[in-house]
């Protein structure tokens, strides 16, 4: 009997065969916290005199959610985190370096690792063939100090995707479609395992986007095998040695199998206030005016995403009513897009560029919505209040769909800008 990726990776760490449903204690390879969850993790360790890091070079403390800090309380939290890093030798990713999940993928995580992070989108790391999952501050705090955690080996849904995306359709549309199909709790406690020729051809950036949103279907992890695409990604980030091939077993036991034909997908949008409230763009008949467009985050703030948005924008003018905010996910993405001239194009189009980080995604600063305002964002969740105001409305889509709205001032089909008639 074959194994799922979750069983494979967790079993390697437990040093025995494991099956879905078992509870095991495993060593963790990488731990992360961010500035919203780090202070509590640190205080929990202080309570029991455990203020140290078992693997400091693989413990990464991020300042990304409220960065640069908009208020003194958060500046003090940042100080606490910096002090802890100093005391324990843990790595600090300070203001301006970027979103935790992007940096973890660029610089820390290897295929086959176990990563626990005090951030729900830690599952992004599954895109690199690692078992990566989000937990709370106390769990990750203990993981930092003890170098281990306990896990229930999840059952797995196999998601097989075949066929080619139409022009104007992206991995973001695929994951929104899947979440709409199975629901925001459709995969609670499960792992999603992605396969099929669409996935084989997909860029590393696209895989990270799919893995990132696993938690929006309730899943514990979103997992991918590794291949030449993974290898090239690691090489590009000067981590050739970190590559390891991890294959899928054909005869693993899956709880459920879902098949998706990528060629049938169209640009897809999540309507307020739940991610599974999705609509195909073809089915939207009303005009939905947009006040703010936001391109960025751990879901869609990578080079490829910025490029996709620019392709739509090229030669067009921004709608005068819309404000557009662009946030590169990391310092590297920022530098690369500067070099390619992307940043200049965005600025000339009329976008505001913010420092790498979470930007407006978590409602703490930068781009909070006014009462009744609507934002079309490339982020991963649209809960009421998410962008700092429960009276705001958030729609989720791909960077290309976001760019189309920046031009027309309403939800629009990006294919109209990409497909020559």
């Amino acid at each position: 009997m074959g194994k799922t990726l979750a069983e494979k990776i967790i079993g390697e760490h437990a040093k025995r065969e494991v099956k879905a449903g078992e509870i095991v204690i495993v060593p963790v390879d990488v731990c992360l916290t961010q500035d919203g969850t780090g202070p509590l993790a640190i205080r929990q360790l202080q309570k029991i005199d455990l203020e140290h890091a078992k693997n400091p070079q693989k413990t990464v403390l991020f300042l990304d959610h409220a960065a640069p800090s908009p208020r003194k309380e958060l500046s003090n939290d940042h100080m606490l985190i910096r002090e802890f890093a100093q005391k324990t030798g843990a790595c600090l990713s300070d203001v301006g370096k970027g979103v935790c999940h992007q940096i973890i993928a660029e610089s820390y995580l290897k295929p086959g690792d176990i990563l626990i992070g005090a951030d729900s989108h830690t599952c992004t790391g599954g895109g690199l063939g690692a078992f990566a999952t989000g937990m709370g501050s106390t769990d990750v705090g203990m993981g930092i100090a003890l170098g281990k955690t306990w896990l229930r080996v999840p059952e797995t849904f196999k998601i097989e995707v075949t066929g080619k995306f139409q022009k104007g359709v992206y991995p973001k549309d695929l994951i929104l479609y899947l979440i709409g199909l199975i629901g925001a709790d459709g995969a609670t406690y499960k792992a999603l395992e992605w396969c099929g020729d669409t996935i084989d051809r997909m860029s590393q950036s696209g895989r990270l986007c799919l893995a990132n949103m696993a938690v929006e279907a309730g899943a514990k992890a979103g997992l991918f095998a590794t291949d030449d695409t993974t290898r090239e990604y690691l090489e590009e980030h000067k981590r050739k040695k970190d590559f390891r091939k991890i294959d899928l077993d054909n005869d693993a036991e899956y709880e459920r199998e879902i098949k998706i034909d990528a060629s049938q997908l169209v640009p897809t949008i999540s309507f307020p206030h739940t991610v599974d409230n999705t609509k195909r763009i073809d089915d939207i008949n009303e005009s939905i005016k947009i006040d703010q467009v936001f391109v960025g985050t751990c879901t869609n703030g990578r080079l490829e995403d910025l490029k996709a948005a620019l392709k739509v924008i090229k030669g067009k003018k921004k709608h005068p009513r819309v404000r557009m905010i662009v946030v590169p996910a990391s310092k590297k993405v920022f530098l690369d897009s500067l070099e390619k001239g992307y940043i200049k194009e965005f600025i000339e189009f009329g976008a505001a560029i913010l420092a790498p980080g979470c930007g407006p995604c978590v409602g703490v600063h930068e781009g909070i919505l006014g009462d009744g305002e609507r934002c079309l964002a490339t982020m991963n969740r649209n809960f009421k209040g998410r962008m700092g105001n429960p009276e705001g409305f958030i729609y989720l889509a791909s960077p290309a769909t976001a760019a189309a709205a920046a031009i027309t001032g309403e939800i629009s089909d990006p294919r109209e800008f990409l497909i020559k008639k």
Partner: protein
Amino acid sequence: MILKGKAWKFGDDISTDLIAPGRLFHLRSNLPELAKHVLEDADPSFAQKVQKGDFVVGGKNFGLGSSREHAPTIIKLAGVSAVLAKSFARIFYRNSINVGLPVLICDTDKIDLGDQLEADLEKGKIKDLTKNIILDFTPLPGAMIKILNDGGLVEHIKKHGDFKID
């Protein structure tokens, strides 16, 4: 342990953004202050009205969203004795146990706002005294019972110096 109190009813998909909103990010290191806003975006008056021992009763997928442990922590700080729901999001469920807040899965459709409830954690039964019915809840996994019985994960590690869950 027997818990007693009144039911506060909420709907499906109560996210951590509704429990502990991002706009109050700056209060995360001041939990008693943050607790004054608990569930504010779902019911603005809840924090003032809730009494010690009361129950938060949700629908499906309670606690979906971010990993912020502050969410179950401030529910507990507000005096709530347990959260009842048809299902919970994974991270919220685990966090609740870690901070010592019982989370019980049962058919909450039968419970209405204001019902007097009594939960027996050992027996796995919830009595709705107002309606005179008994609801069963799904027992917690063994590992979680051990952590909850020690008073949460910090106390568990303090007591054993390690994970002792099998």
